[in-house]
């Protein structure tokens, strides 16, 4: 039986990339009145995701990658900048109707399988709600649609899972339910915020493979957010490296991994565990300094305090993202 859920609604997707953000900025105020500080979580971010592409967003905590997902999913209002989905710009204060359209097209998968499902509701309820709130399927066909979604995410036989509650499921199974819920909306773009980092190692690959299969079958665009370079390399076509709320390097996955240009990317590459290397006794790993303080970023390049190649001009002004190869751009004075 041909599933009506199999196709993402390509008819409503406009021309242009699946997602484009321009100058996206998000600031938070923290602290009490009188002693407030501004956390610059995202600064002037320019990024695009093509239709059917998997983009990995790599960064450590505080890099802005989760803020990016939350802002694009409109869980938070951006401070400045534009978000365009399928070529259509999302207004800064969207009407309820417009926001709902946006939500239908952009879905999110959350990191923690243990708190991303309401413990008081069954699997059936959680996967049915998007179908109902977007009016995608007539009531009488809801159950069948849910069963099919559960099938597609590998929860088989689906009918056994309908009545289960989250606490009766393993972490991997819960994450599959979360994926089914996101797919139920028939989105064009999925933002996956570290979907495997809280799962057991042997389960991670099965979930990653599931995401890849679903993405290919439905020509979905996927933003895969992670701090794990290995996972990023496995999943994505392109990798964007984030640091202190900005993109520092972006390019085809194989290139960024084999020839990282930005000193921070090189640092990440060296820091990641890789048993292929012999024990790194020779190079004393000098990672001086701490992750950046987003409330008081230095002028110029935010990575300068920790960069082994720092020059005086690094602290004068922020370098632009410059092209260094086909589709490969880096933000560093070394390449200007």
């Amino acid at each position, binding site marked *: 039986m041909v599933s009506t859920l199999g196709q993402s609604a390509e008819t409503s997707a406009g021309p242009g990339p699946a997602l484009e953000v321009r100058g996206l900025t998000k600031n938070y105020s923290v602290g009490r009145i009188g002693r407030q500080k501004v956390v610059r979580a995202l600064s002037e971010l320019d990024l695009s995701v093509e239709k059917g592409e998997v983009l990995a967003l790599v960064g450590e*905590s505080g890099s802005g990658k989760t803020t990016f997902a939350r802002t694009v999913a409109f869980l938070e209002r951006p401070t400045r900048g534009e978000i365009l989905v399928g070529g259509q710009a999302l207004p800064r204060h969207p009407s309820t109707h417009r926001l709902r359209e946006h939500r239908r097209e952009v879905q999110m998968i959350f990191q923690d399988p243990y708190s991303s499902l309401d413990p008081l509701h069954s699997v059936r309820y959680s996967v049915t709600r998007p179908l109902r709130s977007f009016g995608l399927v007539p009531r009488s066909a809801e159950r069948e649609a849910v069963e099919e979604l559960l099938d597609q995410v590998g929860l088989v036989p689906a009918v056994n899972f309908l009545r289960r509650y989250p606490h009766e499921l393993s972490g991997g199974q819960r994450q599959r339910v979360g994926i089914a819920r996101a797919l139920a909306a028939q989105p064009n773009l999925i933002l996956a915020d570290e979907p495997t980092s809280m799962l057991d*190692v042997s389960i991670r690959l099965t979930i990653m493979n599931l995401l890849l299969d679903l993405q290919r079958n439905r020509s979905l665009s996927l933003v895969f957010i992670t701090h794990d370079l290995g996972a990023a390399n496995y999943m994505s076509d392109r990798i964007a490296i984030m640091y202190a709320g900005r993109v520092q390097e972006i390019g085809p996955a194989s290139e960024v991994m084999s020839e990282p240009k930005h000193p921070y990317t090189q640092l990440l590459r060296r820091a990641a565990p890789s048993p292929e290397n012999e024990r790194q006794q020779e190079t004393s790993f000098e990672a001086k300094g*701490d992750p950046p303080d987003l409330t008081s970023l230095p002028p110029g390049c935010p990575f300068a305090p920790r960069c082994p190649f720092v020059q005086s001009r690094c602290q004068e002004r922020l370098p632009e993202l410059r092209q260094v190869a086909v589709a490969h751009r880096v933000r560093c004075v070394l390449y200007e």
Partner: protein
Amino acid sequence: MPPLLEISELTIGYGWQLPPSVIAVRGVSLTVAAGEIVGIAGESGCGKTTLALAAAGLLDPPGRVLSGSVSYLGTDLTSLSASELRHLHLAEISMVFQASMNVLNPIMRIRDQFHDAMAAHGVRSSDEARRQAEETFDLVKIPRRFFDAYPHQLSGGMRQRAVIALAIVLRPKLLFLDEPTTALDVVVQRSILQSLDELRHQLGFGIVFITHDISLLVEIADRIAIMYAGAVVEEAPARALYEEPLHPYTTALMSCFPPLGGPRQRLEGIPGQPPDLRNLPKGCSFATRCPKVIAGTCDVVEPPTVRRGGARRVLCHLYSEQAADVG
């Protein structure tokens, strides 16, 4: 000279009734020598944390040692009283728990927490305590000025280093680390691991490093023990384990880490789920998920411990003598 730590056929159960409902650790044997880093790798529920708690003398009810022994420098820890164990802790045996940067008391300055810990072990003079603590701070590369600060004034990485400093300030001989860097960024993780390596060369303590990240262990450990469903299924020197894994679970586990470079290939995880510890299947606990399972043997008879040259052992039918005959 007895080894630093000797775990012998240790079996640990959880539960208030007898016999306990869950056997978390089954017949585990492991030895740690001074100056050695032994890694224990496994996924959640394999028993590695329970094993570490018992080996550090920190196992509380409803966990109970059912059989076997844990000896520290020849002394059986299970025979010691609570106060004797307390004397050992921090001064001889120390443990750093997962995400323990949250273990620091948020309303006490770091120096006061050090004072408390050290005073409990006889270092009463606060000057002496300060001197020793600041030396330790230097060793773990924390700027001395943080000694007088509150925990929230340090970053996550610094806090974790502070906890490690607290764990080694009295220069214990045996250090347990349970996922000490999982909650940290990969860059911070790398520098902390490097510091630990330098420290154990300088101070000569033995380290038991528990993690799910086997690729990390291959880089830093001398020997690695792989645990599954409460038992050690393989133990080998780190490099040998990486180059020639014997147990099918080890092979499968290592292939779960996508490589950072090289040609992009599809990898498969391990199908199925770990067994329910209350209801272990007959025979080998990995049989239902094993790509090399021998029907009629693996699902009926428990696998033997087979020793292979060079300090290796594996718990698997594939390497037993009978299998050699058949195969």
